[in-house]
């Protein structure tokens, strides 16, 4: 596994006001085939934290993972894409307050190794106010 030959990109797209679509793309930037050992099915994870590093939400939290190891080859330029949706809640299902957050993508490899992206900033905006009817 050659970390330098890989790149990761996180896309965070707001879906309406109640969810953010997260996408982790891991790409072979080298000119030769790479073999990754992916740890678990699913092997990816997303972490949402406050700016002070406190974990707010984790995609895998509460999920049962099949503990299998997969040898996955990646051709030059080939990309693995992993997706999840954050419904702007914490791990207890409560809506998080508006503010600044950061998200990290994680790809679990053969334990204990994992690939972790640098934190990427996210802004959670206040929910849009409903238009008041005349007479309310």
């Amino acid at each position, binding site marked *: 596994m050659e970390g330098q030959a890989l*790149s*990761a990109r996180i896309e965070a797209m707001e879906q309406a006001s109640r969810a953010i679509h997260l996408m982790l793309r891991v790409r072979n930037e080298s000119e030769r085939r790479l073999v990754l050992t992916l740890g678990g099915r*699913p092997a990816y994870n997303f972490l949402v934290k406050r700016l002070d590093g406190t974990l707010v939400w984790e995609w*895998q939290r509460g*999920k049962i*993972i099949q503990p*299998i*190891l997969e040898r996955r080859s990646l051709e030059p330029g080939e990309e693995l894409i992993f997706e999840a949706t954050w419904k702007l809640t914490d791990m207890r299902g409560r809506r998080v307050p508006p503010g600044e957050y950061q998200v990290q993508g994680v790809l679990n490899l053969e*334990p204990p190794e994992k690939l972790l992206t640098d934190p990427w900033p996210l802004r959670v905006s206040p929910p849009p106010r409903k238009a008041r009817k005349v007479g309310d």
Partner: protein
Amino acid sequence: MTQTLKRLASVTSILLGLILASGFGAWSATLTPQMPRVPLPEETLDEQLARLAEQIPGFGGIFLDENGRIAVYLVEGEVTTLSVREVGATIARVLGWDEPRLRAGVIRILPGRYNFRQLKEWNDQIFPHAFELRGVRWTDIDEAQNRLRIGVENEAAAEEVIETLVSLGVPREAVIVEEVEPILPMLTLRDKVRPLVGGLQINFPGYLCTLGFNAVRSGVAGFVTASHCTNVQGGVEGTPYWQPLEATDTFIGTEIADPLYTWRLGCPRGRLCRYSDSAFAQLAFGVNASLGSLAQIASLGAIEITGSFQITAEATRRIRGEVVNKVGRTTGWSQGPITQTCVNVGVTGTRIVLLCQDFVQATVAAGDSGSPVFKINGSGVTLYGLLWGGNSSGTSFVYSPIGNIQRSDELGSLRTCAVGTC
């Protein structure tokens, strides 16, 4: 928005690796500021003892006897002018061994026949010749027997060694030649191991899992692993297996049973259910497997194999709080209490629901799928089931109970060696 990936190398693991790599000597000596430091790295123990023999005339060896007393051979006829206390002090100084009994001269003196320097001289003479002979396994100066010892493979090798001793002029009576077992490197769960036992790493195209346990199903010898450790979870595709990895001489079997996941009574609408995540593979011709054996591991968290556990029973009931074990290729041996029983569990990323599964609070990681779950009961183990899932933090695993695995709509009856003789 492209970001460089950070690799989370485990500092703890690296440090541990360095500590282990530094090694621990067989000789444990406590050094104090008053004691001269012994140049341990430069000198073998035999060289140290030979140096001791230069300072203690007639010294033939030192060891702790069966009662833990310090015993020293002194050759009869080689008169030493040293008192027993002086002998002890010299040993303490040369070996750098701060032992009060040595300083006090509390030593058991035994009549020896050979001076250690003489033994070392013969050993140095024999050593290069011995390893030119077939079947020599080791050579040693046995300080507890005041003799040389040579371990050989068989009687023919012993005869050759004795002929060589005679030709070198070494007295026959100074050498013990004995047949001994081979010294093998310690195998781990990830090495090639035969006969096959539960807990070993297995490989099928593109993936690594763990062999659960050997079994006989409808008269066919084979092994059980997780259903998701097949080419397709549910249904038979003839998945080939190798142990530990695919190679010309490591093929061990082919999947022949993996019931489909279906909607059935008790299964939520829109979901597919089974009572176990298990599949059965037929053993390949000529592969040796030990029915009823699971890999026994040196210690919790380790993967080095020290022997085997024997399955002597299958769990007919499970109680929350019971402590069970698993052995798997990634995290080795782990142990913990059953925290939940008979849980219906949705499998992440699929429509599958596994019915009536148990949760255990114990270590798990990717690669452990298929591990045998068991309880140690004195001389044997009781088989509880097969591990197939874990939480994201690796602190809890899920297994399919053995009773579920042997339901008629699952793999059916299996002979695991739990009853009768194997």
